[in-house]
């Protein structure tokens, strides 16, 4: 059975993740009625520049720790909901997925909210870095300073998930 939380240099697949989630969720409480997933896919252009490919780097052990924190936060907010997060690292081509998040729940509202919350939190606190390669150079993309204890960031993620 697939791990629910993973960092991998292999291409990401949606179906095994959903199956793993379903199997685990079927055994719990009301069972699995709703699964919401999110796939981040590498786009051709970024701010008008043509992207050749991306390269993701991670602090792997810490990234798995971050995913665990996110899964715990989601379980607190939506007790009947189970999360899976797979992030790919290394070189990723246009059209390939860099991240897959899935949330399984008895009810659809929780599945949508937990999935949205998780992807927001991944972007905020997972120690993963995106290196964009253009025709004429490369650039590291920099978002927030990763800090799981930053309550402002966390509230922002919850607001995007719930409002």
């Amino acid at each position: 059975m697939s791990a629910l939380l993973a960092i991998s240099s292999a291409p990401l697949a949606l179906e095994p993740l959903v199956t793993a989630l379903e199997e685990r969720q079927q055994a719990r409480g009301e069972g699995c009625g709703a699964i919401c997933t999110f796939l981040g896919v590498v786009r051709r252009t970024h701010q008008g520049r043509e992207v050749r490919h991306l390269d993701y780097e991670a602090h792997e052990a810490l990234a798995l720790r971050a995913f665990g924190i996110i899964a715990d936060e989601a379980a607190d907010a939506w007790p009947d909901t189970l999360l899976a997060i797979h992030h790919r690292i290394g070189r990723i081509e246009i059209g390939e997925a860099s991240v897959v998040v899935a949330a399984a729940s008895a009810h659809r509202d929780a599945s949508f909210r937990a999935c949205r919350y998780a992807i927001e939190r991944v972007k905020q606190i997972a120690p993963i870095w995106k290196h964009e390669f253009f025709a004429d150079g490369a650039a590291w993309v920099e978002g927030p300073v990763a800090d799981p204890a930053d309550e402002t960031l966390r509230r922002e993620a919850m607001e995007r998930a719930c409002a």
Partner: protein
Amino acid sequence: MRVTVQFFARLRELAGCSSWTCEIADGATVADVWQAAEQQFPAIAAMAGRVSCAVNADFGRMNAVVHDGDEVAFLPPVSGGSATERD
């Protein structure tokens, strides 16, 4: 004492180094380790104040005291998640 320092992503590029063994006084904090790293790799100073840290693969704070054998990682601002940045 000795701590292992890890640099990631742009910090790694600025330092020109991914892992460095730092000799530092007992009682030093993560912030002290960063200062020592800046001495050794001046280019990383460009990211001072926009860095977070991990100690032994768990999130840490800059004022945490480090111990002999600890692994201290400095983390540039992150950009994982979806492949589109401003979405």
